[in-house]
């Protein structure tokens, strides 16, 4: 039978001696790594939830002041570790905005392919982990198998499965070859079957729907007021997607839809993510079939791009350019100003606010973390629900601890 919301008891009322405190500690399988909730419960109903975060705060922003624009991409990778290349694309998008560099069409298409692959990657983990937390282990294994294929694609392009640090200022680390294109095509062909399998397992599953429907409802006004973006806001009816509203990379060339829902509950967020995966697949298919030729890095005479290995060893100008960029206390000049830029990452609007003082290091590299902002809405979503719904709501919000704490 469907769950009913119980009237919560206010913490200051005289009946409050019935309330007890439970620590949903930082080490818990369902908290998606290190976040802590101090719950005040009335029996099984949550009366108040106070989040305690910072258990993975590693000083990313302080490191941003110490590493140059090409080195910091390795750190930015480790922020939203579920979709690593998306963070790199965001970082270099903003750095190139600051430096005023326009990247080549081939680079734009390749970055778009990676951004959409990472969107599928993130949504697969989110759906898989949400299913795992509710007990549907098979969906988790199916999702992880597809993620292994995406890891293979990343490895073909850059050499590392995970955290490839693939983008550079003005381009990419390496260009891609034929086997990359073949792998992407194979993925595009094989993914819809898994998607259909997971849909068949979960979408009309009575238990799944009962546990997700009307749990954690976020209204449209609340979503806007509380700065929510991404699938969470779109599931509440806010029709905003940075890929369409402020097109970046090559999104203008592709035909895709923006998926929105009006329910605002966990089921709506799940359905939005499932459909977004299919739209991403469409974009990847269009991009890989129309991949432009040309060079991947910006004009090799520019001061910001590393020349390729062949010319570095063969020509003196390239060697000098290589030296000027790599050696410490040299590097490229940047304008002395500040800029904010953002992309549509799988969790929402991932932006960077870079303050530059003219050197090759950022003076201040601030991340606008979608997970941090979305976790702030969690206490309001969970009031009145039961302990078993905490897991559902947390999963649907897609909180990544490293982005939450930085």
């Amino acid at each position, binding site marked *: 039978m469907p769950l009913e919301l119980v009237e919560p008891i206010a913490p200051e009322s005289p009946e409050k001696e019935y309330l007890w405190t439970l620590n949903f*500690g*930082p*080490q*818990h*399988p369902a908290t998606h*790594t*290190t976040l802590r909730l101090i719950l005040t419960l009335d029996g099984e109903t949550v009366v108040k939830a106070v989040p305690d975060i*910072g*258990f*993975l*705060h*590693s*000083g990313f922003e*302080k*490191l941003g002041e110490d590493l140059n624009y090409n080195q910091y991409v*390795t*750190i930015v990778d*480790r922020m939203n*570790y*579920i979709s690593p290349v998306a963070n790199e694309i965001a970082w270099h998008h903003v750095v190139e905005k600051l430096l005023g560099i326009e990247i080549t069409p081939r680079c734009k298409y390749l970055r778009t392919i990676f951004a959409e692959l990472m969107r599928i990657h993130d949504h697969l*983990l989110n759906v898989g982990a949400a299913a795992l937390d509710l007990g549907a282990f098979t969906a*988790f*294994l199916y999702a*992880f*198998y597809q*993620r*292994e294929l995406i*890891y293979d694609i990343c490895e073909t392009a850059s050499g590392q*499965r*995970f*955290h490839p640090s693939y983008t550079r200022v003005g381009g990419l680390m390496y260009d891609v070859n034929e086997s990359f294109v073949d792998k992407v095509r194979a993925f595009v062909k094989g993914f819809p079957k898994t998607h259909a399998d997971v849909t068949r397992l979960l979408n009309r599953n009575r238990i799944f729907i009962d546990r997700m429907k009307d749990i954690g409802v976020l209204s449209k006004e609340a979503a806007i007021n509380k700065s929510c973006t991404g699938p969470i806001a779109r599931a509440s009816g806010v029709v905003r997607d940075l890929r369409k509203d402020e097109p970046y990379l090559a999104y203008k060339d592709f035909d895709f839809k923006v998926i929105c829902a009006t329910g605002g509950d966990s089921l709506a967020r799940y359905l939005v993510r499932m459909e977004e995966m299919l739209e991403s697949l469409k974009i990847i298919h269009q991009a890989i079939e129309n991949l432009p030729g040309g060079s991947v890095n910006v004009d090799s005479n520019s001061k910001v791009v590393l020349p390729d290995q062949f010319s570095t060893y063969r020509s003196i100008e390239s060697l000098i350019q290589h030296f000027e960029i790599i050696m410490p206390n040299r590097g490229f000049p940047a304008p002395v100003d500040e800029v904010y830029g953002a992309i549509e990452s799988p969790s929402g609007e991932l932006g960077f606010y870079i303050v530059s003082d003219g050197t090759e290091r950022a003076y201040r590299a601030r991340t606008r973390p979608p997970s941090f902002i979305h976790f702030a809405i969690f206490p309001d979503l969970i009031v009145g629900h039961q302990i078993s719904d905490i897991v559902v709501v947390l999963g649907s919000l897609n909180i990544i*601890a*490293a982005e939450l*704490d930085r």
Partner: protein
Amino acid sequence: MAVDLSDSVILTQLDRLANWVRKNSLWPMPFGTACCGIELMATGASRHDIARFGAEVMRFSPRQCDLMIVAGRVVMKMLPILQRIWLQMPEPKWCISMGACASSGGVFDTYAVVQGVDRFMPVDVYIPGCPPRPEQVIQSVIDLQEKIRKTGTLIGKEFRERKASEAPLPLALELAPTETVISPGDFATGTRLRDEGQ
């Protein structure tokens, strides 16, 4: 706690049996904090299956596990919790420090990240990598199995003998008092250490 048997008693065949049993059923306690936690999940998933090596159930209850895999960077706010969970695990227990961040701080040489979990906790196997491939994780479990086979005992004698920590000294002891800002806080409630002489 390890049983106190005098050193004149040697139990070879029982030791071998105990080692064989323990090494082939190492139940991991995944202390996954960051990206390495995802690679740990991938190690447990269908392509690289760690269950083939006996690590069948990843129980999140420390009382039921004997192998703690610290996967990911450990921040100073998280360290007392890590120590508390380590103390909650019953003997015999081993620890694998997975990834560069848990072994030495990794890329994060900052004010908040502990530069290596082995400064505060005994570690048996270190896995380099950022993140290590699942094959490396499986190799480390195999290495730990070798270590147990070679040095394990039924009664846990080898655990009693490691009294000194092999880690570098904390920086707070090396800096001049005027240069350190010691963060007060009663971490004693988080970790139950025995007094000297017990």
